[in-house]
């Protein structure tokens, strides 16, 4: 590093630090010092200034990328590397090269396909009602309401609850023998439901937890977008005799299109990675996702393979398969978005 010789004192070069370094300056310093030295100094300074404007933005963004490389890219690549090996958690340093075996094995692995199917159905069961309800709630909150701030905060509280706490409460609610929901069902004459044992019932239960936690969050995003819709649109729609419902359908929804797409993408990613809710819903030994794996998601299957069966290589292959699935989903979203834009 070159020392900042010319800056031994800021006062010594009061006028030389210019925004446009190429402009010749009547340097005070030049009077006091030999001209040649001043020139060199100026050149050096201007070069440093160019470097500053050129490179310091990179320095500013660097911390993020350093962290991202350490905790994002490296694990991603290392997972990819270990997915090509046979690795056991009991000896994670002994890696045996097996090529694509872990992937070809997944293709024939019915547990994997079952998990993929469950991830999809739970994803649909949770995302669709969630976003529809969020839209409705946002619409209601968009009206002039008393204590609207209170409602907005209230709607977000489930999001601020920890997954574990929320899920444990839902486990009690959905309990077979002593659950409140079954108690209510019996009260109205419908029989008890063994929520955890059935395929559909368990998936509905897990979806309920997801819906409960995320509806408010999405509602708030929709609300923000709705408040950006210009009032003139509603006024002219009202002048044309459109009812509230028609306004919602023909003004609000089209204006919200990009926001809706955004929430769909985010919810899809969340649904693909669903883990905590089914794990805790399963109780003791929850990584299996039920006796027949009826609510085992991809995340749970990955966890079971890696941390319960100790097959790290296979777990890595599942992780990469999930990543590829997300890429495909993102691609589909992109196509739809493009189509939507064209149709507009």
């Amino acid at each position, binding site marked *: 590093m070159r020392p900042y010789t010319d800056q031994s004192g800021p006062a010594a070069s009061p006028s030389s630090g210019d925004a446009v370094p190429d402009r010749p300056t009547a340097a005070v310093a030049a009077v006091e010092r030999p001209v040649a030295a001043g020139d060199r100094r100026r050149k050096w300074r201007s070069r440093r200034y160019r470097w500053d404007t050129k490179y310091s933005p990179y*320095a500013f963004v660097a911390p993020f990328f350093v962290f991202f490389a*350490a905790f994002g890219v490296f694990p991603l690549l290392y997972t990819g590397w270990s997915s090509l090996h046979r690795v056991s958690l009991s000896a*994670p340093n002994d890696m045996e090269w097996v090529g694509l075996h872990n992937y070809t094995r997944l293709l024939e692995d019915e547990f994997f396909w079952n998990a993929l199917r469950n991830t999809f159905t739970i994803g649909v069961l949770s995302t669709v009602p969630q976003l529809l309800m969020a839209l409705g709630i946002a619409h209601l909150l968009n009206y002039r309401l008393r204590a609207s701030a209170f409602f907005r905060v209230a709607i977000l509280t489930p999001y601020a609850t920890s997954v574990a706490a929320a899920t444990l409460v839902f486990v009690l609610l959905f309990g077979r023998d002593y659950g409140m929901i079954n108690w209510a069902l019996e009260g109205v004459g419908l029989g008890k439901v063994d929520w955890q044992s059935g395929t559909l019932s368990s998936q509905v239960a897990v979806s309920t937890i997801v819906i409960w936690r995320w509806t408010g969050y999405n509602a708030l995003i929709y609300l923000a977008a709705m408040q950006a819709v210009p009032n003139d649109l509603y006024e002219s729609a009202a002048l044309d005799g459109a009812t509230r419902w028609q306004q919602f359908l023909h003004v609000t929804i089209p204006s919200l299109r990009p926001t809706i797409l955004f929430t769909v993408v985010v919810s899809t990613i969340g649904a693909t990675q669903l883990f905590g809710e089914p794990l805790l819903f399963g109780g003791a030994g929850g990584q*299996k996702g039920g*006796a*027949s794996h009826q609510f085992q998601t991809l995340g749970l299957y990955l966890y079971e393979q890696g941390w319960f069966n100790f097959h790290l290589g296979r777990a890595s292959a599942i992780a990469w398969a999930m990543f590829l699935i997300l890429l495909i989903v993102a691609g589909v979203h992109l196509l739809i978005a493009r189509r939507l834009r064209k149709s507009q």
Partner: protein
Amino acid sequence: MRTSTRTRRRAVVVAAVVALGAGLLGGCAEDSDEGTGGSGGGKENAQGKTTLEIGTFGVFGYKQAGLYDEYMKLNPDIVIKEDVTERNDTYYPELLTHLAANSGLQDIQAVEVGNINEIVTTQADKFEDLSKAPGVDKANWLDWKWAQGSTKDGRTVALGTDIGPMGLCYRKDLFKKAGLPTDREAVGKLWAGDWQKYVDAGKQYKAKGPKGTTFTDSAAGLFAAVNNGYAERFYDAGGELIYKDSPAVKTAWDLAMQAAEGGLTAKLKQFDKAWDQAYANGTFATVSCPPWMLGYIKEKAGTAGEDQWDVAAAPKPANWGGSFIGVPKAGKNKAEAIKLAAWLTAPEQQAKLFDKQASFPSTPPAYEMDVVSGAKNPYFGDAPTGQLFAEAAKGIPTLVIGPKDQQIGTAFGDVGILQVEQQGKSPAEGWKAALKEIDNAVDG
């Protein structure tokens, strides 16, 4: 002025980069320090004391029983710190990765019985040999417990702490209503020697017992209890997988199916929330219970279950649970750690632990001590638990445990049996599902 702003800005950038860089490096340094130096022990504090750290899971009870305090009083130069992970499923994978990385290890590490085989067969070279350590006498331990913690060539990787000799806990009030004996001697005789007799008693209970209650909690619990009484269940002595047709698994499966299909169980999964609630509501009459389970029952059944529960001998002696402690080679105070491990597992300390925490000693000399031989449990009708469990402990066979024992047991219990019990599938379907599950787990 411009210069100074720019200088200031540059200074801020430099400061930010330096701070972040230092933060990163600091993070690493802190980490490695914790890995090899700090938690690894060897930290000497101002008074020149040596800190020993013990990594455990669940409730080992050393601290609660005052054993650390006692040791520190005996050895004023030692400070003991305990690092507790709540669940073994979290603790054990962590231990494995720490062993692989040779860092982050405590001076003493606990190992659960379900994992001890894997540690002994795959990680033995990472642990100190404790067989000839001062204060360790092989003769003190039950043979099978000693054998489980040692390699074939006689290195002892970990010393036995507690064991889980099984009894059978039953509710006197429910037994009375079902016309079954309530006296613990008579109850023990009812099924002595054969689990089939236990299931038969269950059938009688089903016919006459109070409505809304069942004979036992879960078919999987029965399956495990029967299996644990054999020397070979999933693996034979040569390390080969025999679960498909070992007599242990066959007998246990058959009994579990009888219980599941005959409606003798409450269709619960052990350690689930609903299981706890069933204790509180007193809706099942029996459960196989090692000593550590007594405290669990007392906690969950609460005052409502007071004087209702009692404990009798199980049909056959069997072991459920228990742990070991070993000294990793990567630790810094190995000599002191070995001394502490030997002291903690000595019969005297195991007896004290039983007295305070109900962890049953794996060292028979402790059974002769008053705190064990005279122990009675007031919650369970003053049952002489010390004698009862000591009797069971002596009859326990040396169970062969293999590396995938836990996964196989779970496949049978949480998948195969549960499908029959909760989802109404046929035993053949359940068996097939369990085998498929095991294939997926043991396949490299």
